[in-house]
């Protein structure tokens, strides 16, 4: 016991920041955070993503009022919501009261409201995940989106989360907390983009988002991590999908010193469907870890997962995909694939598909590959006059295009494609 105390000592300094929070059940969450150990190399879920170093520094509270210069708008219409260092910035955001039946707001304004009280902490249970406990104890702020029965947004919501270099360069602990609730037949599309302005690499962004996808409702998330010199970015998306509900997410990681994307989906009604797609293009010392869990808890649900990465330099890619099929979840269809291309001798990829199936009438498949770019194909292209670098880019683009093809929003798909092509120029 004594040794645990010593081990956890750095954590205490970080957790002290989270005291005196007014969020629901903050005290319990903080107590749990104090109990839970910092995950280390022997913690299976965090084996390849070292986070101990995140606790060896002293963080300050994030300043949301710093002046920022906003990046260019997306090349298509979207309702922009801006957070600076985790704080909602109404002055930088668009008018959010545009669509009937849809509430888009700072979650802080809703702490005492029914929907928040009923759902907060219920979808993303703390379990033994230290980062969830920390976030639940004292979120910075976040986004709440409530869509009533049959409500739809007229255009995607673009959530821009900016991390700045803190004054005096002291690192910040930023804890975004979102709640998305879609009632029966509602439909919502959200682009969640993380950007860093200035040298923000010492900071830690620890996000939690809870989403409830109601009967026949449809939630589409596009996550983009595009943070050169950005903070450590640890996030959890916990999603619950009801009968005939549809959840889809695409996660694109173009930069990141330490990125961890946890996605946990519970399929709770028959006909529910989850689609998880991801692309990571990593170089330098980037580290990206995509961890997913899909729970097939009832019969007749489907899930499909495709993650592809090109990893070069000294970068590390991690994939862990768990599909859990409960005993009575008959006629489950679950597909999962992870494919990686390594560039150079120092890049690393760890891939681990996990299927845990207790039903007997199911169709599940999984596969993972780690390899080099096809030398024959590269030579073929070069022999026709395509330069080696361009041939490599063409092949990389073609490799990840399979994931992009799954994205229904063609404007987003094309925008992403262009960003990825630019990234491939540097790889």
């Amino acid at each position, binding site marked *: 016991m004594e040794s645990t105390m010593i081990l956890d000592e750095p954590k205490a300094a970080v957790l002290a920041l989270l005291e005196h929070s007014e969020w629901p059940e903050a005290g319990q969450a903080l107590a749990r955070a104090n109990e839970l150990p910092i995950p280390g190399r022997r913690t299976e879920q965090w084996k390849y993503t070292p986070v101990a170093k995140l606790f060896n520094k002293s963080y300050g509270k994030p300043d949301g009022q710093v002046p920022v210069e906003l990046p260019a708008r997306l090349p298509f219409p979207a309702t922009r919501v801006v957070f600076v260092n985790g704080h909602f910035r109404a002055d930088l955001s668009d008018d959010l009261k545009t669509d009937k039946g849809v509430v888009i707001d700072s979650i802080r304004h809703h702490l005492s409201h029914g929907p928040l009280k009923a759902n907060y902490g219920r979808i993303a249970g703390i379990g033994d995940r230290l980062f969830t406990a920390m976030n639940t104890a004292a979120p910075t702020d976040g986004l709440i989106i409530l869509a009533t029965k049959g409500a739809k947004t007229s255009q995607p919501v673009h959530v821009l989360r900016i991390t700045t270099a803190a004054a005096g360069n002291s690192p910040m602990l930023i804890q975004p907390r979102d709640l998305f609730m879609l009632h029966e037949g509602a439909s919502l599309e959200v682009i969640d983009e993380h950007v860093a302005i200035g040298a923000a690499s010492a900071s830690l962004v620890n996000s939690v988002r809870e989403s409830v996808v109601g009967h026949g409702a449809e939630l589409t998330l596009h996550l983009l991590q595009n943070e050169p010199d950005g903070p450590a970015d640890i996030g959890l998306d916990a999603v619950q999908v009801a009968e005939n509900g549809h959840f889809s997410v695409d996660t694109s990681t173009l930069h990141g010193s330490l990125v961890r994307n946890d996605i946990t989906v519970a399929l709770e009604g028959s006909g529910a469907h989850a689609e998880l797609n991801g692309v990571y293009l990593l170089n330098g010392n980037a580290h990206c870890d995509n961890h997913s869990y899909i729970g097939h808890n009832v019969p007749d649900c489907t899930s499909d997962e495709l993650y592809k990465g090109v990893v070069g330099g000294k970068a590390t890619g991690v994939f862990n995909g768990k599909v859990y099929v409960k005993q009575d979840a008959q006629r489950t269809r679950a597909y999962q694939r992870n494919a990686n291309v390594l560039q150079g001798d120092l890049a690393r990829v760890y891939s681990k598909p996990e299927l845990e199936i207790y039903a007997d009438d199911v169709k599940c498949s999984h596969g993972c590959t780690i390899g080099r770019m096809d*030398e024959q194909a590269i030579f073929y292209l070069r022999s*026709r*006059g395509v*330069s080696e670098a361009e041939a490599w880019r063409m092949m990389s683009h073609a490799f990840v295009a399979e994931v992009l093809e799954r994205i229904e929003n063609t404007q987003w798909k094309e925008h992403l494609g262009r960003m990825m092509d630019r990234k491939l120029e540097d790889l």
Partner: protein
Amino acid sequence: MSLLKITGLHARIEDKDILKGVDLQVNAGEVHAIMGPNGSGKSTLANVLAGRAEYEVTAGSVSYLGEDLLKLAPEERAWKGVFLAFQYPVEIPGVSNMNFLRTAINEARIARGEKEMGGKDFLALVRERAKLVEMDPALMNRNLNVGFSGGEKKRNEIFQMAMLEPKLGILDETDSGLDIDALRIVAGGVNKLRSKDNAFIVVTHYQRLLDYIVPDVVHVMAEGRIIKSGPKELALELEEKGYDWVKEHA
């Protein structure tokens, strides 16, 4: 004018010596056929000329338009007019035939200090050259060679050659796997591209192709060397008497 001069060329793959002293001179306006049994080094020679990295040149020289060809990267060779039609064209999912070709053409133009070809001119050229090999326009927008039949792949090779207008076209067993109609079309395409300024090296196993692409010189390769050269009639003689006959009389 000498386009290509190969002198005492030795090459190996891994630890296996394959070319053991090849000498060959090709002048502009000529078509050379290289025949020989399996494993004689024909395809290796074709691939070494195109710059495939798996083959290591251990001795000898290759001069192309007065320049040391072996020093050039594969794409530089292409920019200077070398083209290899592959024996087994590679399927590349996700890369469209058209985009790839346009990139290839424009990289070559940039390397030569010329203006890039615009979209309209490119499409006009595609339409014109596709007719040479009777290529189905639907294949143009497909991914490179993906789902193409054997014959379609070979036609696509000749179509690309027609688009890139090489000075030295090397055909590596382009006839293998082709039925007689496809063979006629592919050969017809090559014949239309022949001029006094370019040259072709046609690597083949069978005399059949040479009925359609009539060579100026026929070479026989065996055990990594050219052991006999002669006029086009040599191909017929080979067909009749077999390679052993040449080996005995070489």
